[in-house]
């Protein structure tokens, strides 16, 4: 579904992403992790079309999308969320999502269809909305949900979820993780999930890529990656312990 080959992005003399390659199968959830400044967001922005690659290729469903404009990438079937939710504050919840549904499909659906798809996305995410409910007063978790609903309304085949857990408490994190699993199950949408904390993510993803200084330092199944000495070194201290705990919990779940 997605094949990334030798993807590189330089900003002046600084190489943010250094010849990384990975691929992604239909319906897979891939975790993209790494400390701050490791190149996760740059990789994301390259796939979403916010940056043009310096070198390398990004093929999506057999078509080269590297260097396309963000709107074109969106029309090609890739939806994304933002780490910090960026809703249109003067629009209602439903308007926010319906706008994505309509333009995300390049205006090729009818008004009514886009409206229905917006309601569907909100229902799938479980964000309550009244017809004229606005954005003001929504909490951090609700805004994250809105962000997801907006991305889903564009009817993507691939969803790029950017730090969907940031700013959430434990319970909300679990909920968000379940939500992503649910999205994959209901819609068979492929997901790349970026997070700089590993915890909950490791329980949900099928495979995991760890970036550091713009390079892939580990890739594979979550519990393999978690034991990789390089990864442990990058995630020194509490994060690494936390990571071990989370993955053994996952192994336990798998046995049930």
């Amino acid at each position: 579904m997605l094949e990334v080959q030798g993807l590189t992005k330089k900003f002046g003399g600084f190489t943010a992403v250094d010849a990384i390659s990975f691929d992604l199968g239909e319906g897979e959830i891939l975790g993209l992790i790494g400390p701050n400044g490791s190149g996760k967001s740059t990789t994301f922005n390259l796939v979403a079309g916010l940056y043009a690659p310096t070198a390398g290729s990004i093929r999506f469903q057999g078509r080269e999308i590297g260097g396309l404009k963000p709107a074109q990438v969106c029309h090609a079937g890739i939806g994304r969320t933002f780490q910090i939710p960026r809703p249109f504050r003067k629009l209602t919840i439903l308007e926010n999502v319906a706008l994505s549904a309509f333009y995300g499909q390049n205006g090729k659906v009818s008004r009514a269809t886009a409206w229905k798809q917006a309601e569907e996305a909100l229902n799938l995410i479980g964000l309550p909305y009244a017809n004229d409910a606005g954005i003001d007063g929504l909490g951090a978790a609700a805004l994250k949900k809105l962000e997801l609903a907006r991305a889903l309304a564009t009817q993507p085949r691939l969803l790029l979820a950017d730090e969907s857990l940031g700013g959430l408490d434990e319970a909300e994190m679990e909920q968000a993780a379940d939500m992503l699993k649910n999205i994959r199950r209901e819609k068979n949408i492929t997901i790349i999930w970026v997070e700089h904390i590993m915890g909950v993510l490791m329980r949900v993803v099928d495979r995991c890529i760890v970036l550091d200084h713009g390079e892939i330092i580990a890739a594979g199944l979550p519990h393999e990656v978690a034991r990789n000495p390089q990864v442990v070194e990058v995630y020194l201290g509490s994060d690494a312990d936390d990571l071990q705990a989370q993955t053994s919990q996952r192994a336990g779940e798998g046995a049930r």
Partner: protein
Amino acid sequence: MEIFDIFLLETVLNGVLFGGVLALLALGLNLIFGVIDVVWICYAELMMIGMYTVFYLTKTFGWNLFAAFAAAIVIVSVLGVLLHVLVIRPVLDSEPINQLLVTGGMLTFMQAAATLAFGIEFRNVGVSMPSLVLGEISLPWSRISAALTALVAMVLLWLFLKKTYLGTAIRAISQDRGIMPLVGVSPARIYLTTSAIGGALAGLGACLLVLQYDVHPAIGLSFGPLTFMVCVLGGLGNMLGGFIAAFIFAQLISIGGFYFHIEWGYVMAFAFFIVMMFVRPQGILGGKS
């Protein structure tokens, strides 16, 4: 005393009618600024071209007045798009001062070009409309129809912004330019559409004014600064604020002119504007920033 009050009432009503037209002019400028974040300093000069269009099509080519109106709206709308593509787009990412300078330069350019092309004579379409007489009050139909048309246009634009996806995108884009492309909206296309609508509104303004005023190359100066100040007073980019400010300005001009002299009306309006800029620099309904 009785008669005095009647004339004052007539003045207030005239102010309301003028306010309606002023509100329409401000709406176009606010729409452009709200969406593209650039002030069309030459907005009233686009209107001037529209007025000349109506004048020449009716007087020289013998067109029906309403056909000439339609043509003026289309032509000014196209001019709005050209202005965006040729002048605004290249400076979209420049400093605001550069954007003001290029559209300000366009103002001078268009005035000079109009002087060369049309001469400095004052032209009039020569359509005279009767007045609506209510007892001792008399209101020219040209003003009444202009205000009503402006009102209808504003309601239609409001419905468009509220009820269509394109309108929703136009309302949304001013809040977050960066995210629009990621929900599949192409800002370039929204800018073009908005420029076309802004131009069409200037064209409509031209049709309403050409019935009440002579057209000459500097007519823009009678309305451009006024429209700009209405927008700033209301909070630049805030359409509702501009609407309210238009009626405040129109009343000041109308009532000031009634008690003193018509020029004093403008002096009062501008003095009020200056004071307000100290009291509320962000405008009546402007945001905090």
